[in-house]
C-alpha cells in the first residue's frame, strides 16, 4: 500500500491552504443590523485582526441599553489569530510537500477543533455583550438580553440582526470542505485499491 497522497490530492491541499491567505485581505464574518430608522442597514465586519464597518454608530446605539463599547483592543484574539491562520497554511504546505496521510488526518482534526473553538469564542463574546449590561443604562427591559445571533437571524428590540460568514469566512469554509473532500477521495480510492 502506498502511504503517500496522490499528486492531485497534494495539489488540492496546497491550493486549499493557500486560499487561506485571503482572510488577511477579506473579512471573515459579518453582522448586519436593520431597523425602521436604518433601512440601509448597519454592518460590522469581523476580520482575523480587527473590525470595520459602522462600529462607531453601533456603539452609539448600544449605549442606550448599556452594552459595552466595542473596540478592537478588547479582543486578544485579533493579536494571535493571524498566527493561527499562518500555522494552518504552513501545515497544509507541509502536507503537500510530504504527502503524509497522517498529517492530513491531523489537519482535518485541527480544522474541526479550530472551527468549534472559534464559534465557541464568538458565542462567549456575544453572551458577554448581550448579558453584562451597565446597570445604569437608559433603556432597561427586565429579563431581556441582547446576545447577537451566533449564526442566522435574531430580533433584538427594534433591530433585526443577521450573523453570517463574510467572503473570507466562506473561503475558509470552502477550503476546509476541500481538505475533507481530498480525504474522502483518498479513502475511496484506497478502498478500491484494497479490494483489487
Amino acid at each position, binding site marked *: 500500500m502506498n502511504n503517500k497522497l496522490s499528486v492531485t490530492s497534494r495539489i488540492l491541499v496546497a491550493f486549499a491552504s493557500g486560499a487561506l491567505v485571503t482572510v488577511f485581505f477579506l473579512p471573515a464574518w459579518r453582522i448586519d443590523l436593520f431597523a425602521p430608522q436604518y433601512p*440601509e442597514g448597519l454592518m460590522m465586519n469581523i476580520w482575523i485582526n480587527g473590525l470595520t464597518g*459602522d462600529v*462607531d*454608530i453601533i456603539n*452609539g446605539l448600544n449605549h*442606550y441599553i448599556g452594552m459595552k463599547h466595542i473596540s478592537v483592543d478588547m479582543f486578544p484574539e485579533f493579536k494571535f489569530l493571524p498566527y493561527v491562520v499562518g500555522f494552518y497554511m504552513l501545515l497544509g504546505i507541509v502536507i503537500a510537500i510530504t504527502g503524509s496521510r497522517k498529517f492530513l488526518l491531523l489537519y482535518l482534526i485541527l480544522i474541526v477543533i479550530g472551527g468549534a473553538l472559534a464559534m465557541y469564542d464568538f458565542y462567549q463574546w456575544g453572551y458577554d455583550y448581550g448579558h453584562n449590561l451597565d446597570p445604569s443604562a*437608559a*433603556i432597561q427591559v427586565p429579563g431581556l438580553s441582547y446576545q447577537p445571533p451566533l449564526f442566522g437571524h435574531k430580533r433584538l428590540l427594534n433591530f433585526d440582526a443577521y450573523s453570517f460568514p463574510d467572503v473570507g469566512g466562506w473561503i475558509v469554509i470552502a477550503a476546509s470542505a476541500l481538505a475533507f473532500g481530498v480525504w474522502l477521495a483518498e479513502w475511496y480510492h484506497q478502498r478500491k485499491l484494497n479490494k483489487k
Partner: protein
Amino acid sequence: MKHSFLKTFFAFSLLLIGLVWLQGCKPKGTQSAAGGDAAKAYVAPGKYDEFYNFVSGGFSGQMSVYGLPSGRLFRVIPVFSVDPEKGWGYSEETKPMLNTSHGFVPWDDLHHIALSVTGSEHDGRWVFGNANNTPRIARIDLKTFRTAEIIEIPNSAGNHSSPFITENSEYVVAGTRFSVPLGDKLDVPINTYKENFKGTISFIGVDKTSGEMNVAFQILTPGINFDLARAGKGKSAGWFFFSCYNSEKANTLLEVNASQKDKDFIMAVNWKKAEEYAKAGKGVKKAVRYAHNKYDDNTHSATSTIMNEVLVLDPKDCPDMIYFMPCPKSPHGCDTDPTGEYIVGSGKLAAVIPVFSFTKIQEAIAKKNYDGEFDGIPVLKYEAVLHGEVSKPGLGPLHTEFDANGNAYTSFFVSSEIVKWSVKDLKVLDRVPTYYSIGHLSVPGGPTKKPWGKYVIAYNKITKDRYLPTGPELTQSAQLYDISGDKMKLILDFPTIGEPHYAEAIPADMIIKNSRKIFKLEENKHPYVAMGEGKTKVERKGNEVHVYMTAIRSHITPDNIEGVKLGETVYFHVTNLEQDWDVPHGFAVKGISNAELLIMPGETQTLKWTPEKAGVYPMYCTDFCSALHQEMQGYIRISPAGSNVPLLFSTGTNLPAVTTPAATEKPATK
C-alpha cells in the same frame, strides 16, 4: 300713460333677459380644468422623484428644492436671507456670508437659477442664484445643498440679468437692471440720467475645479436697463445675448416713459472677444468696493473679503465686441434654442415673438448691415437678423424654454397661458391655460443643448381660487404639464415658497450620487472644535467666554456651566460628534437674542450670547435626535459682574449638593 308703462315694462324685460344671457356667458371657471392626470404626478411613498427642481424663492431670498413629478418640497436652501431655523446668518460661522460693501444685509430677492454646465449640458456640480436687490451671485454646492460662495457685483444696481451661464461654466453673467451713476460722481440730480447714468454687465469667472468665482471683467454700456440673458450654444457659444429695456433712458414713470419706442434691444456680446480684450489689457482698472464671501466645509466657517478693484472694458476701446439688435417693445425673455442658432426675444408688450438667427447676425455684422448706432454701438438691421416672427402667439410673452424635438414653449403673462410652437417654421402648435398669470416656465434641461423634456412647469404669479384661502396673502404656485404627447396636459398644481421666478430641473441620478451624508470629524479644522468629549472645555479670554461643547445622542458636554459673569459674552462652539447619516443636533439657550444652531454630523457651529440678567439659563437640543432627546439638556449659570463664582463645567459629575446653600459653590470636577 299706458303707453309709457308698456315702454318701461318692455325696457325692464329686455334688461332682465340681457342679465340672464350674460349670466350664461360667464366663464365656467377653473373646475373645467381641474381634471389633472394625477397618476402621472404620483410618486408612491418611499419612492424617489425623477427630477430635482431648483426653484428661485423670489422675495424670500432663498432657493427651494422640489421633486418632479410629485411637486414635493425637500429643502429650502438659505442663500441671501437669514434663516433662524438653520442658524444661517445667526451663527458666527455664517454671518460673513451675508456681508456686503453695505455691511450685513439680511435679505434679498433671488430671481434666477443657473445649473452648471459642461458642453452646454448639465453636469450637476453647482447651482447659481442672483440677488436682485443688493447685487450679488451665490454658488450653491450640490454635494451639500448649501451656499458655498457669494460674490457682490460692483458698479451694478439690481442684479436682475443674472446668473446665466456660458457653455462650460466659464462665466456667469450679471447685467445691471438699473443704470446708475458710476465712478467718483455719484451724487447727481436724478434727472441728469441721460448724461450721468451708465449700465454694466459683469462676467464672473468660475474656477473649473473649485467653482470659486471672481469678477473677471465688466463691460460698460449705455444707460439702459438689462432684463434677462442667455449664452449661445454650439456655434453661438462664444456669444451672450442680453435683453434691454428703457432705451428711452427715462428716470421716472417708466411704465409710460420706457414704453414709448416701438423697439428696444437685445444686446449681443461677443464674450470670447471681450475675454481677449481683457487679457490684452484693453480694460481699465477702476476702484470699487465689493464683498467676496466663501464658506469652507473643513473649517465650517465663512470668510468675507472686501475687494477694491474691477477691470472695466469700454466698447469705445474694444470694437466688434457688442451690438444691438432691435426687438419689439421692452423685451423680457431672451432665450437661445438647443442648437444655438435661434434667439427668441419676448417683448412684454409685443404682438409677435421675434426669432433671431445667429447665422444672419454674423452675416449682418460682416456686411455692416447697420441701422445706425445707439450711443456709439452699432445697431443691426432688424430684418437682416430676423429668422421670423411667431404671429398671434398670445398676450404678454415673457420666457421661452425648449424640448429636444424642436419645439419652444413660451409663457404669456397677460393671456395666462403656455404656447407651444415650432422653432423652425414658427407655427403655433398648442396652447394651455395656466392658473394664473404665469411668469417663468421650465422644461427639464430646457436651457441646455440636451433638453430632458417630459414636462413643462409653470411658475405663476397669482393663485386666487386654486387653493384654500389663507387670508389676504395667498400661496404662490407652480403647475406641472405633461409634454410627452402633442398636446400639453396639466397634471399637477403645487404650492411654492416665496415667489418663484426662474427654475431649472435636472435628472435626480446626476445629483444623488454626489450627495454628502456627513462631515468627517477627522477633517474638521474649526479653530474651536472639540474632537471628543475629553476635549471639551470652557475658556475665558478677556471678557469672552468660549465654550468648547460637544453634542452626541443624548447629551451635551458640558451640560452644567457656572462662573460666567454679566458683561461677558459667551460663545457656544458646538461640535456634533455623530458620524451617522441624518442625525443633526440643534442648540438653543433661553432668552438668547439670536437663533438656534442646527449642527450636522461632524460639524462645529457657534452661537454668540451676551446675557443681560443673572440667573440660571436652560439650554437644549432642538432637533429630535433620539429616544432620549428630551433629556438632552443642561444649564448655564450667569452670575452678577464682580461675583467670585469659579468657572466650572462638567457633565454627569456635578452631583446634588448635600447640605448648605454654600455647597452650591462647590466645584464640580471635570
